[in-house]
């Protein structure tokens, strides 16, 4: 399973970025290959409109099945994420990617949809 995180950096110890569309990075963890990869999303930060759908498209293109984030995506992004069947977990605030992943595995993150 491939899991996407909204993050402020690209390492396991990097913090989660609580924003979705305007997150600094998307980090992907592929549980099958145990590989960690990332996409720089800083350009999206300055988009006046449509950062959410654009970010959802990045998840689609990277075949993410699960999203772990903070505040939760907005309406437009959620339309896409629900359509493509990404399962979304929220309220990973002020913690590292590693900690968020562990909470997810323990079933302690809140499911958004």
């Amino acid at each position, binding site marked *: 399973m491939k899991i996407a995180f909204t993050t402020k950096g690209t390492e396991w110890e990097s913090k989660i970025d609580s924003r979705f569309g305007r997150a600094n990075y998307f980090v992907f963890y592929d549980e099958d290959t145990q590989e960690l990869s990332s996409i720089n999303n800083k350009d999206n930060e300055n988009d006046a409109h449509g950062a959410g759908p654009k970010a959802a498209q990045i998840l*689609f293109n990277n075949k993410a099945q699960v999203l772990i984030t903070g505040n939760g995506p907005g309406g437009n992004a959620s339309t*896409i994420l629900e359509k493509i069947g990404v399962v979304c977990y929220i309220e990973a605030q002020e913690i590292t990617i590693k900690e968020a992943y562990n909470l997810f595995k323990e079933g302690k993150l809140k499911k958004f949809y």
Partner: protein
Amino acid sequence: MKIAIASGKGGTGKTTLSTNLASYLSENNKVVLCDLDVEEPNSALFLKTEIIHQEKKYKGIPEWNKNTCTLCGNCQEVCNYHAVIQLGDTIMVFPELCHSCYACSDLCPTNSLPMINNETGTLTHFKTNTFDFVESRLKIGEEQAVPLIKQTLKYIDNNFSDEFHKIYDSPPGTSCPVIESTKNADFVILITEPTPFGFNDVKIAIETMKALNKNFGIVINRYGVGNDDVINYCKKNNIPVLAKIPNKKEIAELYSKGELLWNKIPEVKTELENIKNFIFSNIKN
């Protein structure tokens, strides 16, 4: 002449000034007042009007035709607002993000994104005893004011010659709807109140008008409350203060009844005269 009345901060007297200035000028001039604050038009509350024309307004939103689409991806690349998104073999359109620029539609090699009309609001043309009044009202749920403002300005241009003094009651703030409402004006009046909030927001509005290269001046409303920060700032930066409308209970009372002020309160008439004289002597028609 086109005179836009804007403010930065909301609730500083744009509509009060617009309606009174229109009525005052219409004594000796041909005047059309236009309420461009389409998200919450309220000039009509102060006017006795009769409707002479009404029309629905629309904007185009692309609609995807999957049968002819070749999935080339041009549409999503040219969209500045990510309103068109390609997901594998699907194109999704987000109408609320669309700015109706037609780029995706016009640049689609197979015409698979035809623009479909969506209602954005209603334009109404009224007559008062002495001047014309045009108002547009955004449909509830519609997020974008600019397309309707643009069409309303076009209606004014098409229906009123240059003989008319055109007064635009603009939206508050300094974002796109304000830019659209003021960018073609010959003169912009920024109305503010002499409070810290008013001062903060009028400074932003001043910067905006400077960036647009506008000829503009300041009117202070509710003069007597707050402090002298606005006046001192204008003095220091050579910005003309056209008028000071006093803070009076009588004004608030008339306003609360939806009545005009200038024909009942002499000081208001004097201040409108100051505004008129300044603008007419500084701007050629």
